[in-house]
């Protein structure tokens, strides 16, 4: 998933009160920042690849596992319970959003078996080929577009822009 991650992160922030037991308000700046940072956190594994510190095969490994989700949740828990809940939800949804890729995710790391729903072929971790290749396939349009439609409905239900 590429652009669809934006919609998915916003949709998560639209459920902030439900996910945090009312600690964080719907579509608040806090909910948006936490959802976005947590949602993008797994993809920061491309930074060491760009810096040539890690190999290409490092992408979609530790950062896309339940161990990583638990670690982030446990780090945030003593700081802010609401942030921890929202971050865990955002991370799990990130894993679900990436699961349809043919490359699969080793969600049970350190067990390296990869799990995939295999709806679209993997096109690499970054760059123009990865971006263009993603949108040459049917399921990406359907799921990513669908995420934006869900965001539209949530914005309407919550009365935020463009529904003020």
């Amino acid at each position, binding site marked *: 998933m590429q652009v669809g991650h934006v919609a998915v992160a916003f949709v998560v922030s639209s459920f902030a009160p439900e996910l945090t037991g009312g600690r964080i308000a719907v579509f608040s700046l806090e909910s948006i920042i936490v959802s976005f940072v947590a949602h993008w956190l797994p993809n920061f594994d491309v930074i060491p690849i760009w810096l040539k510190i890690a190999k290409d095969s490092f992408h979609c490994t530790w950062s896309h596992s339940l161990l990583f989700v638990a670690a982030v949740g446990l780090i945030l828990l003593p700081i802010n319970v609401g942030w921890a809940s929202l971050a865990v939800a955002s991370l799990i949804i990130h894993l679900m959003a990436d699961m349809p890729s*043919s490359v699969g995710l080793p969600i049970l790391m350190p067990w390296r078996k990869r799990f995939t729903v295999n709806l679209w072929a993997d*096109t690499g971790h970054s760059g123009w080929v990865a971006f263009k*290749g993603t949108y*040459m*396939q*049917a399921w990406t349009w359907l799921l990513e*577009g*669908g995420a*934006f*439609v869900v965001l539209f409905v949530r914005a309407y239900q919550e009365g935020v822009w463009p529904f003020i």
Partner: protein
Amino acid sequence: MLKRTPLLANIIGGAMAILVILIFEEPGRPFTMGQGLLLYLLCVVTSMGIAMFFDPNAKKAKEEFLKINFYEEKK
């Protein structure tokens, strides 16, 4: 991409937008023309995926990408 694919996406997208409006629009709080148009555009984007299921080029693209391993170690 076949010429009929975007056309098919527009037709399915229109039907999808109407369905979303019928399901989610609250009485006394109708969508404005602009909001309806935005919804239609989002539904067309989503429907592109459905239309591409009937486009052999999309299937071919997936098959081609499946042959490539982007994480193979470079020698």
